[in-house]
């Protein structure tokens, strides 16, 4: 398969990844919203006990005693953030397969930058 064919195929794959990512993330957020409003019934007191410090840390929400709806919504946020990262990873591999060194290096640099932000900044 030629390099241009690989890149053409990668476009279709990126389309599917972004579509699946957005559908999954938005679906998870919507599910979280429905559970939060109708099952947990916490929508009435939305911001009465908020911002006392540490309460909005997404990881502590996942581990803590907060409502199930809020936990599901937090997972939705992580899926949202993961989607562009997966697209970049896929692009780096696709450019490498297509022997497009410039594109591969660029996508890898983006990933390294995200990794630095995640771990060091």
């Amino acid at each position, binding site marked *: 398969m030629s390099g241009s064919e690989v890149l053409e195929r990668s476009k279709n794959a990126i389309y599917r990844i972004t579509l699946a990512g*957005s559908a999954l993330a938005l679906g998870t957020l919507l599910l979280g*919203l429905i559970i939060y409003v109708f099952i947990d019934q916490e929508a009435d007191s939305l911001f009465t006990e908020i911002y006392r410090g540490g309460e909005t840390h997404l990881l502590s*929400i996942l581990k803590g005693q907060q409502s199930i709806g809020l936990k599901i919504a937090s997972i939705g*946020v992580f899926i*949202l953030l993961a989607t562009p990262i997966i697209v970049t990873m896929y692009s780096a591999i696709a450019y490498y397969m297509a022997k497009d060194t410039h594109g591969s290096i660029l996508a890898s640099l983006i990933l390294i930058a995200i990794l630095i932000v995640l771990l060091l900044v």
Partner: protein
Amino acid sequence: MDAIILVGAGFIGGLLGSITGLGGSAIMNPIIVATLGLPIRVLIGSGIIATVATSITSTSKYIREGLTNVKIGFTIALTAMLGSIIGVKTNLLIDPRIIFIIFGVVLISAPIVGFIRERRASRTQATAGKNISSKNIYLASILMVSAGFISGLLGIGAGAFNVLIMEYILLLPLRMATATSTFIIGLTGVTGGILYIKEGLVDPRIIMFTIPGIILGSLTGSRIMVRLRGRTLRYIFTALIWVLGIQMIMKGLY
């Protein structure tokens, strides 16, 4: 009641944002500040996640239509991400009142940027991303630091600024510049979003209530845009945004 206000603010943000090219968070945040009085930094942190949501939703459509130039996107996204990091760090250092003032100034200036772009549109010759000189790539990359900075500082996509840079320096056609800008917003949003999450400034409550509103508002706005023949309605929307901008500046000053 808070939930209804959040969904409504998201809807208005999505509606006005898609018509004026500002994006949902830029308009939604001032409305929530005025109505619910939530801390601006939490709204900015949550708003930047909303920009990622709108970015990946639109990117899938643009990539299918072959409008996104992924390689150019990666090239200039790197410096935009650097700008976003600086923007978030600046946000955490400065007084919230200064954030209000900068937010107001950006709200007032962004529609002006749009009008300038439209007036000059016929004068430039688009190249569809081919034969771009390395000098222009360097210049665009440097300018993208400022677009990323605005995005990180205020939790908005800063699409109006991205498109301006790509259209005039990289000479991309408007639709390709818009699509590539949307792709870049996702990457700068991830960078800023991770940093705001680390600081505990992202609230899933705000995100889950505003995102459905933003998406509905954007869809309605894009339909209105198709039918919008005259500029009158657009001027009215711009005036509304300026009112929000002035309100933010006043909040910062007094």
